[in-house]
Every structure is written in structure tokens, then in C-alpha cells.
């Protein structure tokens, strides 16, 4: 079935294109004036200016330390197992290896490597970690001059991670569990 589109019949003045041209020139001139003299620029000059990241932003995963400056990771290798792009590689200490530097843990990894070229910042490692030892932090712009430079080792990850815990996963779980004791469930 043919569809008839009723086009608006233009007046002579409109057919001249002139009002449209003048209007267009006015709009573009206004924008140029605003950008040039009023500094109303919508773009951001990236390396100098940066976004303020929202909380919960998933950047690069780093290892964190506890309040006594001890390694929290216990080398359970759950993150290595769960990592979808297989970016994490953990070398366990072995039977006669180094003891953990905190008292309530059995061991800590001899080496902990994250290949930042492979990492997809998915956050599974943070999700799975029973010790809250790895957190996705705010870094998103990781650069290096070689592939080997982009494999971050334990020392580097710990120094980048710092001490902050971020989201206290177990605390939340505990609250959840407590909330389920009573009815109706309140969080």
C-alpha cells in the first residue's frame, strides 16, 4: 500500500534558504563565541584534567595490606582459579617456604603476578577473595614500555594497593546474616 507523506509546502521565503542560512550562521557563531571567549568547552583535556571516579569504580586489581603492614593474601589461589582471562599467576611458598608475616595466617604467596595486559578488570578476584586481600582500585590508565613491564609482581601490587580495605565484604555478609535472623528482613 503506498504511503503518502504530506510534506509541508514551503513558502517563497523559506525556499530561498536564506532564513535557514542566517539561523545556522547565528547558531554556529554563538557556539564559537561561547567556546572562545566564555570557555564553555564540553571536552576535557585528559592528561591534565581527570574524571572524579565514582565509588565502586572497578579499576586495576591491587593487593592490599592490613593495618599492621602485613600481607593479607594467604596464597589460596582462588583468584587465580576464577580469573577469566587467566591474568593472575600465584607461586605458593611450598612446604618449607616463607611463613606468613601475620600471625593468624599460615602462609603467603612467594610470588603474585597480575598480567595487566590480560586483566579485564572484572572484579571476580575481589569477589572471590576470602581474605579481602585484593581490591579493584581506582587506576585505569596503566602504561608500560614492554610486555614484561606490564606484568605486575607482588611487591609492586602491594605498594600500589596500600592499606585501605575498600568494601568490607565480610562485614556486609555478617550484617546480612544478622538481618536474616529477624523477620521481616531489614538491611
Amino acid at each position, binding site marked *: 500500500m503506498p504511503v503518502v507523506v504530506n510534506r509541508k509546502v514551503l513558502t517563497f521565503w523559506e525556499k530561498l534558504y536564506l532564513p535557514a542560512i542566517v539561523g*545556522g550562521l547565528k547558531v*554556529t557563531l554563538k557556539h564559537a563565541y561561547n567556546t572562545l571567549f566564555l570557555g564553555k568547552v*564540553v571536552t576535557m*583535556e585528559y592528561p591534565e584534567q581527570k574524571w572524579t571516579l565514582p565509588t565502586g569504580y572497578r579499576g586495576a586489581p591491587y593487593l592490599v595490606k592490613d593495618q599492621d603492614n602485613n600481607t593479607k593474601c594467604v596464597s589460596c589461589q582462588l583468584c587465580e582459579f576464577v580469573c577469566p582471562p587467566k591474568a593472575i599467576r600465584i607461586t605458593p611458598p611450598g612446604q618449607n617456604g616463607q611463613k606468613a608475616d601475620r600471625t593468624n595466617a599460615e602462609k603467603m604467596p612467594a610470588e603474585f603476578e597480575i598480567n595487566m595486559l590480560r586483566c579485564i578488570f572484572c572484579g571476580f578476584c575481589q569477589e572471590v577473595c576470602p581474605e579481602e586481600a585484593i581490591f579493584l582500585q581506582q587506576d585505569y590508565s596503566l602504561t608500560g614500555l614492554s610486555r614484561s613491564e606490564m606484568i605486575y609482581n607482588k611487591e609492586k601490587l602491594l605498594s600500589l594497593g596500600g592499606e585501605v580495605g575498600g568494601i568490607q565484604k565480610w562485614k556486609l555478609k555478617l550484617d546480612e546474616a544478622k538481618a536474616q535472623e529477624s523477620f521481616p528482613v531489614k538491611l
Partner: protein
Amino acid sequence: MDWNFIIFSLVKIAVVVGVVQGIVAYSVLAERKISAWIQDRVGPNRTAPPFVKYIPGGQFLTRLGIFQPLADGLKFLVKEDFTPAGVKKIYFFLAPAVSVIPAMLTVAVIPFGSNIGAQKMVIADLNVGILYTFGIVSMGVYGIVLAGYAANSKYPMFGGIRSSAQMISYEISMGMSVIPVLLIVGNLNLSQIIGWQATNGWMVVYAPISFIIFMVASFAETNRTPFDLPEAETELVGGYHTEYGSMKFALFFLAEYSNMVSSSAMMVTLFFGGWTLPFWGLDHAATSLGMGIAHILVFIAKMLFFMVVFIWVRWMFPRFRYDQLMDLGWRRFLPLALVNILITAVWLWMRS
């Protein structure tokens, strides 16, 4: 053989070509900057040579992107000159040259100043200046058609075909639009036309319709938006220069902007009094060196104004559809130009 004439001509050619290339390079920058400002952006503001901190005001110049054209030029020069497998080699190599040579030749007859000393500031003071310009400018389309044909690929071909059709429909109205000017002045020599305007006022007052048609036609002639059908990126990938890269592509670019320069120069010469200004005593041929230079600066300033208009319009206008373009060329401008000629002729006849 008049050695004096040859040496001065060569000097003038060298200087004019140099200045035109400089303007071309910086009009690319202007294009990028103005487009950025219109679109609420900043534009190129990073490129700087390593010794920028020794240049006074270097930081500010970098923000303005003054060094960007140098980087662009260098990039085009050192890029791999890749020739696609399926192209028709000879034409493929010929096309950029064919499009860039006419673009540069047009400036030869344009009087860009009155005189410095005994030298007239025009490379070739031809008695058929306008005819020469039209003849040369229409050759530019061969380069585009040739490029479209040589690329042996469908989108460049479309670009070339569109370009030829567009050129035919606009060249005629462009030529017709200038005839009233010739009728009023009674001379084809561009210097004489400027001389007439110096005494009688700018031509745009006498022939405004001619100016409008000429301006629109020169937008079509230089393949600029709203008539950039041969290189419509959204429809034809890149248009006639899709298969081109590195310096060959840069030559097409150069040709487009050189055409812009010469079109602006023609508009200034024909309709806006060339190097003259009606005040400050700049309306007659220079008697001193300072005045000669002032005339050249006036000409360049007027020309740059039209360059900015070219760029401004590009970032304001949507592209015309192919049939709209043909409609505008054949059914609007051609009759209008003919009527314009008739009215001018009758007016001149009544006055005489």
C-alpha cells in the same frame, strides 16, 4: 630577452607560491580550530617542537596549534606511499598532479597588490584574466574524475562522476554570474576591474546577485560543504580520494585548499575591490613602499575573511542531496544568472 622581467617574475612566482602554500597549510589548521570552536571543542593544542620553551610565547602558540601544520606536513611526507593492487597505475599517479596544478595556476592572474616600486603586484597581467581563471579552474575537475576512475573501485568512481556532473551544473552559472561584472566594467583584465572599483565603489553594490551566485558556485567548485558530494564521507567512504594515501592524498588536500584560496581571491578581486580600501587613501596605486605592502596586506586580509566564511559555512551546513544540487544549479541559478545579465544590460543601455 628582458632579464629584468624574468627575474622579477620568478621572484614573484616564488613568493606567491610560498605564501599560498603557507595560507593553505594554516587554513587546514584554521579549519580544525574553527570546527572545534563551533562544536564546543578545543582543537589541536598539543603539537610543539622540543625547543618550544625557547620561543617567546611558545606555550600560547602551542595552545593555538601553530606548530600543527608542520607536524601534519611531516607526517604526510614520511608516510608510506602505498599503491593499491587494482589501480590503473599511470592515471593513479597522474590524478593528484592534474588536480593540484590548475589549483596553483589560478593565482597567476590575480592582482594581489598595486605595485612595489615599478613592479606591478601581479604575476601575469593578462587581458583575458577572467577567462584564463575560468579555463584553468574547470581543469581541476579532471584530476578528481581521473582519481575516481584510476582507483578502480566503486566509491571513488561515484565521487568522480558526481564531481563532473556537479562541475558542469555550476561552472555555467558561475561563468554567467560574472558577465554582469564584465558588462559594467567593460574589461576582462582583473587589474582594470580593480581600478574601476577603486573609482566607482565595490562591485558587490552594483551586482549583488552576481556575487551570491558566484559565491555559491565557488563553494560547489571547490567541493566544499554544502556541495561536497564528491567526497561525501558518510556516503562514499572518502569519495574520489578513498584509495589514496600519504603525499598523493596530501596533494588532493592541497588542491582543495588552493582552490579555496583562489576562489576567495577571485571573489575579493571581482566584488570587493581587490587590494583597495575606500578610506585611508588606499584606493589608488601605491606611491611608496609602505603603501604597496599595505595594499598586499589589505588583499590578504579580505581573502582570509572569505576563507573563514568558507570554513564557517562548512561546519554549519548539511550536505545537499544530489537532486537538490542539480535543481539549484540548473533550475535556480542558471535562469537567475541569465535574468541578471539581461537586467544589467538593459540598465547599462538605458543609462548610456
